[in-house]
Every structure is written in structure tokens, then in C-alpha cells.
């Protein structure tokens, strides 16, 4: 793990990159990294997250700034701009059931080739997917979802990069921290090594590539 300024962290992200962004309706999203993406005008991004939040919040800021080529999310209903851009063909949106989405991200992080789920069987979600029968039941084969970068919001980070999350701000964060080639973390508090008990670490240090340093 290396510490890095916010500006340098975002400078490492090229146009066209795929980003997993922690958060659920913006709760648990690293807003400072999102703001810097907007400031540096990173374009043609593929954004993977639970939702696109609201205009002016979390991923919603990227949508409003026209930086998103494609969003992969489970819900966009609370962001009318995403819906508008999608219907106008200005932005591609792949809707994935929430449980399947997080499990696809986990499968990438855990090195699985895919998994079988009954979610989506008999619905439009099954279109184009392989079906596999196990013990007489039919499942969809869902494949792993990877990204170039994971943008993670932690509550505590220690000097090595061990992370904890707080309450419902955990959500996608620990899962995306395993599924991206490069993991960039913003933490609300940075603390010395030893201040997070081993049992309370939710993301072990070796998974973290960059920790955004305090200004």
C-alpha cells in the first residue's frame, strides 16, 4: 500500500477505465474521489455500482457531468438523469439484480469462473445467458465482473491499509476491494497500526493499493 494525494490517485485513472464504486444511494461512496474525477474530467467511464444515487450525490455526479459511457447497476430509479440519458441513448445502462451484481463482483474477487443462481430465471434477465440444471432445478450461469479500479470509502484505515467500514456504509466496499486490478481507498480516519483489532478488520491491508492522504 502507498499513500497518494487525491489528485495523483485520480490522475492514474485513464479515460475509458472501468470503475467499481462503493456505496448505496451514495452512502459509503468516496465523494472526494468522485469530485476529483469530475474535476479532471475523466471520460467514457464504465461505472459499476449498486445504483447511480441522486443527481449531485455519489455516482450521480459522474452521470450529470456526462462522464459515464456505461453504468452497470441494480437500480437507477432515484436518479432521473440516468433514466433520461439511458432513454435518449446517451448512456448505456446494464441492469443487474442486486444479489447477482454483488455476487458477480465477489466471484471475480474470489477467483470463481461463475456461479448458478435462480434469480432471473423466467424473466428478461435470462436473455442471452446459459442455463444449467443441478438436481432437477434450473439456474442461470452468471459470470464474474471485474474492473480496472475500485474506489472504496472506508471508515478507518491504518498505516498498512487495513480497513473497517461503518454501519450501512459498508455495502459494496469490501467486495469491490477484492475485484479490481487497482484499489484506491479514501478513509474518514487514518490511524496507526494496531488501533484496529485483527477481528475488526474488514478489508486486509494487502488488498489496498493506494490510500488517499489527508490534505
Amino acid at each position, binding site marked *: 500500500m502507498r499513500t497518494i494525494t487525491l489528485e495523483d490517485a485520480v490522475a492514474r485513472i485513464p479515460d475509458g477505465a472501468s470503475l467499481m464504486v462503493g456505496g448505496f444511494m451514495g452512502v459509503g461512496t468516496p465523494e472526494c474521489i468522485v469530485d476529483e474525477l469530475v474535476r479532471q474530467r475523466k471520460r467514457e467511464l464504465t461505472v459499476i455500482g449498486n445504483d447511480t444515487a441522486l443527481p449531485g450525490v455519489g455516482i450521480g455526479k459522474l452521470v450529470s457531468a456526462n462522464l459515464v459511457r456505461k453504468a452497470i447497476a441494480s437500480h437507477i430509479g432515484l436518479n432521473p438523469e440516468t433514466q433520461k440519458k439511458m432513454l435518449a441513448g446517451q448512456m448505456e445502462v446494464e441492469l443487474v439484480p442486486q444479489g447477482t451484481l454483488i455476487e458477480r463482483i465477489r466471484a471475480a474477487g474470489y477467483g470463481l469462473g461463475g456461479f448458478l443462481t435462480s434469480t432471473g430465471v423466467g424473466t428478461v434477465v435470462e436473455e442471452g445467458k446459459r442455463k444449467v440444471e443441478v438436481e432437477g432445478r434450473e439456474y442461470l450461469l452468471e459470470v464474474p465482473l471485474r474492473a480496472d479500479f475500485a474506489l472504496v470509502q472506508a471508515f478507518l484505515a491504518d498505516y498498512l491499509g487495513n480497513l473497517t467500514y461503518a454501519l*450501512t456504509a459498508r455495502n459494496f466496499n469490501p467486495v469491490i476491494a477484492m475485484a479490481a486490478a487497482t484499489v484506491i481507498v479514501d478513509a474518514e480516519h487514518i490511524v496507526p497500526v494496531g488501533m484496529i483489532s485483527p477481528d475488526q478488520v474488514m478489508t486486509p491491508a494487502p488488498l489496498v493499493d493506494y490510500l488517499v492522504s489527508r490534505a
Partner: protein
Amino acid sequence: MDAQTIIAKRIALELRDGMLVNLGIGIPTLVANYIPPGTHIFFQSENGLIGTGPIPQEGLAQARLTDAGGRPVSAIPGASTFDSAMSFGLIRGGHVDVTVLGGLQVDEQGKLANWMIPGKMVPGMGGAMDLVSGAKRVIVAMQHTAKGKPKLVKRCTLPLTSARSVDLVVTELAVIAYTVGRATLVETAPGVTVEQVLAATESELTVAPQVLSMKI
């Protein structure tokens, strides 16, 4: 009593001590208001919380403790938080005893459509498909008709949420149970006749030998 209150109160009677329950947005959320005192229900919020409590008093909201809509909630003592993989493990693994969801249409076999209206409303399925496919018991809370048109239809014209049939539909007029692909009218709301329910319903309903009066 308005339609929403009737539905929420009736569904609250389906919940038992110790159950893990997931309430969707809209009418389902209201169910939490009618739990009998002394009953301990674990309410799950799919963003990663069991033990969702009421909206906090002004000045006490915590930005990192929210419901699935991103609004501040409180948590009861004994609450637990977890990541989204675990949250959906609880849902998909059959650990959620009851989920209560809104509905746009329910067909004769109990199949639910509740997540999109093509060309008009495409919010995404969120956790709805997982909940219907995975929860032990699925209860739909919805008004009996929309703009005068029945929502209990022969066949859903809207995209399905799951191939799995729901277990119970509760409307302001009636309670309909689904077993082995058959819809049975089991209760009518006070003052509502079986004929009124049938008239407001497109799908074929088997009328139970003894139709009870909805307890609310």
C-alpha cells in the same frame, strides 16, 4: 380506514416473533407500524442492516445508517450490519422468513410483475428479483385495482419479477392465497362481498369454502 392502512395492518398479522422480514418500499414499509407490542421482528434493510429502527429524532440522524432508499434510519439494540454479499446471502439463501413487496400485476399462478413498465418506468429491479426468488414466503401488498383496472390478471402483461409464485396477496378488498399454481380467495375486507372482489379481479379465483372477514 384507507386502503394502505387496511393492507398494512392485515399483513402485520402474518409476522411472528423472531422472524427475519424484508419490507419493500411503499405500502410494505407501513407494515412495521402495526406489529403487535411485545413481538420482536428482525427487519432487514438490503443495504446491509438487520434491526432497522424508526426514523431518528431530529438532530440524531447518522449519515452512515440508512435504509435502502438512502434515508436515515435508527437501529434497535441487537442490530447487525454487513456487506451486500451477506445481505443477499440472507435473501437468496432462504433465511428471510417473509418479504413484503409492492406489485403492479399478479397472475393466476401467483407470478408477480413489479419492477418495470417498458418504455415508461425502468428503475431497475434492485433487490426485487432476489427477494421473490429467495425468501421463504412472499407477500404482495397492493391495491386491488389501478385506475379501475384489475391488477390480479390472467397473465401478466408486464415483465415478470420471478418465475416463482408469490404466497399471498393482500389488497384493501381481499386476501388471496396461492398454492400449487392456484389462486384462492380466502378473506374479504369488512363490508366487502365475494362478488365485489370477483368483479374487481381479472384472474380466475377459487373461492374458499369459508371466506373469512379480514382481521385488521
